[in-house]
């Protein structure tokens, strides 16, 4: 997926979040979105997913401006893991079942069972996590469940918002290596961790103050 932002400006009641901001992301890129808290890093993801619209400027995805149908197409190509750990109610298994029940994801159903088992193992979650209630999980477990939920979609583009903040050092490395080490993945990620896998080229997109 190729993403180009042309001079996007986004303002929330007097405060500029982004001002005349431009960047380009190419397939396979690993991009760390950096900047102090509250600068609008999450807003950038929301703009890219069409949950917020820029006040001026525009975003192009694969050469098409991000409006109308194109927004829905992007949401079907990007796997987004939100910083917000409110990922739903019920058991973990019900969460995965709901994700796979969406019309667009139904073709993944048949292979999902084996896939889930592998992913749980990858992120060091025991198999019985499936039967646990989401509300009973710790922050770190929820983060990993959300990661598995995103990976179930078998997409190649990831927007990851602080997905390792509640994990211990070893798991942090595991998670970041998994995403950043895959050359097929295009990854935009927000993280305050200093850990960076070696041998992987990571671009940095820095958001700074405008006031």
């Amino acid at each position, binding site marked *: 997926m190729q993403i180009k932002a042309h001079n996007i400006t986004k303002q929330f009641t007097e405060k500029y979040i982004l001002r005349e901001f431009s960047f380009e992301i190419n397939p396979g890129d690993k991009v760390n979105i950096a900047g102090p808290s509250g600068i609008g890093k999450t807003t950038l993801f929301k703009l890219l997913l*069409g*949950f917020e619209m820029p006040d001026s400027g525009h975003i192009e995805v694969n050469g098409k401006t991000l409006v109308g149908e194109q927004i829905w197409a992007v*949401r079907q190509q990007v*796997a987004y893991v939100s910083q917000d750990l*409110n990922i739903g*109610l019920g058991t973990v298994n019900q969460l995965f079942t709901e994700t796979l029940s*969406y*019309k*667009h994801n139904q073709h993944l159903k048949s292979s999902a069972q084996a896939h889930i088992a592998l992913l749980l193992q990858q992120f060091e979650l025991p198999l019985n996590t499936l039967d646990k209630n989401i509300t009973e999980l710790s922050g770190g477990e929820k983060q990993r469940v959300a990661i598995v939920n995103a990976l179930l*979609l078998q997409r190649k583009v990831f927007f990851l918002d602080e997905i390792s903040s509640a994990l211990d050092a070893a798991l942090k490395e595991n998670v970041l290596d998994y995403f950043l080490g895959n050359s097929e993945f295009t990854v935009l990620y927000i993280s305050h961790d200093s850990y960076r896998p070696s041998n992987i080229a990571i671009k940095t997109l820095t958001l700074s103050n405008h006031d």
Partner: protein
Amino acid sequence: MTEAIDLSLFSMFMCALLLLIPIAATSYLKLGITRSLLISSVRMMVQLVLIGFFLEYLFLYNNIFLNISWFIIMLLAAVVSVLNNSGLKLKFFVKPIFGALFISNLLVVLYFNYFIARLDFVFDARYLIAIGGMILGNTLRSNIVGLGDFYKSVMRDEQLYYYKLSLGANTTEALLPFAKRSFKAAINPTIATMATMGIVSLPGMMTGQILGGSVPLVAIKYQIAIMVAILASTVLSISLSILFSVPSAMHANGTLRKELFK
């Protein structure tokens, strides 16, 4: 069995005296609602007196167009009441909620009149207006709860809703869990009422019929029928309300319009 005793002017005066209790209590406790209590009481009296005269004529003429027109006016009042009480703006919701209440209530009341009451004239004023009014009044509360709860919960859990959209859900799929929960919240009170009916309370309609000279067993049969009709209409109307209102409540990108709320 005799017909209900007419209440004389003296009786009505004595009834008004009873109002002194809530008036005294609210003003003593300085709840600041004495004024609205008085206004509501006066409104109720005036409205009911007017409607009393109006219904005399409505029942006398028993004209299909007149009856349906009145039914529609009742519906419009219901729509305004639902929206005022659920904190949603009239502008976006009048049409879908009117459509939802119209279809669900008319369908159920006509079913009631034709298959249950076995009327030859299903638009008979006494049944269309009285039974229709009862059904409408009861579905109203559920709709206020259901519709308000639905939009507020989507607003409150906006992140969760976005999350579902980002997973590839379309609007319907992403809203379904919210709709289910609000649906449950809306019909739960009706289910609870049914479970205690007859023990905790004698329903108003039964009381009316018994005072009007019906034997309790007849009154009970009507009460059962009306409760089932209310439940059916509630389920229908809350589903249709959500279904019909969603398209005008959403932007093309699937986000909720913030201007829906008052």
